């Protein structure tokens, strides 16, 4: 053994150059990518250099060689990743063995032992590192979770206040009422002596007390005013910063509005401001000297931020409402324009036809003319009546008179009514419905109107015949019944799909363009929806969703 080690040492030191070139040759025959992975991203040559620094270059004496061996055995050396170290040693072993032709067996045993130990050491190290980093990760993750929890808690607390105020803002549209409630809420939940809310009146540079709650509720006159820049509140509004006057009795800025106010020993005032403007201030009073601390300032600041938000939203709401009104107005005007053209067309054509045939009958009442004319006149009168119904339905919807209805029967009825005489057009009708479909509460007359409109559109989409398929579905876990009415017409062109629910929109030259709009209205008033899907190759599907009566009961 000793002998072999000496040999090995000898080979390592004397054959360094040839070992190096042999190693390089070996490396060149291995995939560079594989090697980069093994050596933690370093170039194999760099690793080799390092290796020789450790094993060869630094060994100048036998003693040092033994020291190195010991260090390898004791697992002190971990310059390489375990795989890289093993790979290196295997490569080195091959090279070295070539140079130790005569004592192959022993040298191999030594290398094997070195390899085994290094490998064991590195694996142990690897797991130790892994465990360590994992427990560190875990600790960090725990800290992170705790931090997140704290943030969430704080956010939840803020949200509660936020929610309460938002709910107040929503519960009434009268801003004065909102402010009154907020002030009372603050006074009661924090048990302050008195709370007042001031707003800045820009044109007079004064602040007006908008709401108050507490002991001085009766003392402050209605619409109490103070100049900006005067008194505690005036200073706050002027500077935009809160003032905590814990000995307000000796504060030179104080203004006494009425004698009883002397009972107040501390005052805290917080501005209500947006990013660019002070809107007002929230002023709270205490009968105790030093009655306030920074927690009060913080919680009131949170509140006034919310208040600013409420006020801002109220403004926005108002503006949006006005804008919306304007839009509706202009839309109404354009609709009226389109409506007058369409109605002129829709009324004048049948009137001209009716009158024309009537006149022709007066002149020459021959039997064949009476036949044609009476048929056409009654047909045109129906058209006028339908027009009137459409317009009335659109402008003044009737109250719903709901009654439980068997939908498949109703739909079949309507199909026969509308489709009369259409069999010869080559339209094949099919209807499916689940057997356990409950009776659905609808207004039969109005719902028929919806179906008539939808069927008529479908028929008109298929002048040369096609398939009309009505599918009634009750889907699991969905609170509605779906009626799909599908035709095999050309579909709705993509460019007009946004338009089809607009009043007076139509691709036909007859009709009011109100049919689908009214249908949608009626379905929506039933608590349902009407939508469509259209593909140029597979026709159009109209989907009517009606609330499922069985799920409605659970509401």
């Amino acid at each position, binding site marked *: 053994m000793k002998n072999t080690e000496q040999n090995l040492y000898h080979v390592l030191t004397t054959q360094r150059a040839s070992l190096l070139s042999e190693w390089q040759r070996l490396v060149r025959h291995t995939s560079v990518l594989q090697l980069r992975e093994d050596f933690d991203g370093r170039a194999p040559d760099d690793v080799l250099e390092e290796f020789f620094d450790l094993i060869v270059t630094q060994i100048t004496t036998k003693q040092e060689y033994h020291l190195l061996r010991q260090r390898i055995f004791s697992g002190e050396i971990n310059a390489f990743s375990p795989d890289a170290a093993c790979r290196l040693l295997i490569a080195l072993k091959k090279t070295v063995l070539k140079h130790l032709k005569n004592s192959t067996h022993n040298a191999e045993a030594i290398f094997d032992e070195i390899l085994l130990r290094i490998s064991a050491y590195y694996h142990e190290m690897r797991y130790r590192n892994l465990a360590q980093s994992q427990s560190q990760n875990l600790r960090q993750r725990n800290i992170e979770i705790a931090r997140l929890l704290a943030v969430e808690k704080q956010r939840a607390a803020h949200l509660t206040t936020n929610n309460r105020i938002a709910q107040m803002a929503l519960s009434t549209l009268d801003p004065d009422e909102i402010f009154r409630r907020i002030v009372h809420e603050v006074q009661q939940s924090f048990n302050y002596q008195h709370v007042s809310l001031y707003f800045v009146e820009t044109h007079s540079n004064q602040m007006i007390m908008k709401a108050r709650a507490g002991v001085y509720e009766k003392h402050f006159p209605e619409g109490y005013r103070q100049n900006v820049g005067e008194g505690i509140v005036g200073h706050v509004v002027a500077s935009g910063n809160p003032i905590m006057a814990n000995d307000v009795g000796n504060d030179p800025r104080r203004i006494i509005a009425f004698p009883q106010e002397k009972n107040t020993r501390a005052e805290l005032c917080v501005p209500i401001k947006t990013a660019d403007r002070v809107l007002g201030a929230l002023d709270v009073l205490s009968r105790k000297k030093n009655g306030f601390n920074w927690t009060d300032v913080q919680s009131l600041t949170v509140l006034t931020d919310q208040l600013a938000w409420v006020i801002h939203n109220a403004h926005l709401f108002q503006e949006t409402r006005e804008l919306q009104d304007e839009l509706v107005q202009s839309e109404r005007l354009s609709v009226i324009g389109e409506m007058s053209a369409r109605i002129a067309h829709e*009324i004048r054509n049948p009137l001209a036809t009716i009158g024309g045939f009537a006149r022709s009958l007066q002149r020459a009442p021959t039997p064949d003319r009476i036949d044609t004319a009476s048929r*056409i006149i009654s047909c045109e009168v129906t058209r006028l009546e339908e027009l009137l119904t459409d317009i009335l339905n659109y402008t003044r919807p009737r109250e719903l008179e709901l009654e439980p209805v068997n939908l498949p029967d109703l739909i079949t009825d309507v199909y026969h009514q509308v489709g009369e005489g259409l069999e010869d057009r080559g339209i094949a009708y099919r209807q499916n419905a689940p057997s356990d479909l409950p009776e659905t509460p609808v207004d039969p007359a109005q719902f028929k109107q919806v179906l008539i409109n939808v069927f008529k559109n479908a028929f008109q989409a298929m002048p040369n015949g096609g398939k009309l398929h009505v599918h009634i579905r009750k889907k699991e876990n969905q609170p509605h019944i779906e009626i799909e009415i599908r035709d095999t017409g050309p579909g709705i062109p993509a460019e007009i799909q946004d338009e089809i629910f607009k009043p007076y929109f139509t691709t036909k030259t007859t009709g009011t363009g109100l049919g689908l709009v009214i249908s949608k209205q009626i379905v929506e008033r039933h608590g349902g929806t009407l939508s469509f899907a259209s593909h140029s190759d597979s026709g159009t599907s109209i989907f009517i969703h009606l609330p499922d009566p069985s799920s409605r009961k659970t509401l």
Partner: protein
Amino acid sequence: MKNILIADDDQNLALLYEQELTDEGYRVDVVHDAQTAIERIKENPPDLLILDIRMPGMDGIEALNHILGINNQLPVILNTAYSNHKDNYLTWSANAYVVKSSDLSKLKTAINDVLTGERS
């Protein structure tokens, strides 16, 4: 006998016109959309075209442009339910603009005027 082509998508009204104008002694041909009207004019030009404006597909105003492009000598009477189309300068190239009415005397007068060369 003068040939009149009527282009109106309202079938009942077209039927009335056909009946009345036949009584007046014209030979009447009816089509229900502008595209067919254009084809008919190319094949067999009438002496007069009565053209509705609101029709499916190509409307009467657009059709008028096409038709005058094919034959700018063809007399055209625009016949519509809506008088405001008169404001559209594209309608001015028609020989007459008659608003639809159950009283066909205005239309008949216009037909007569156009065919006899008196511009209304």
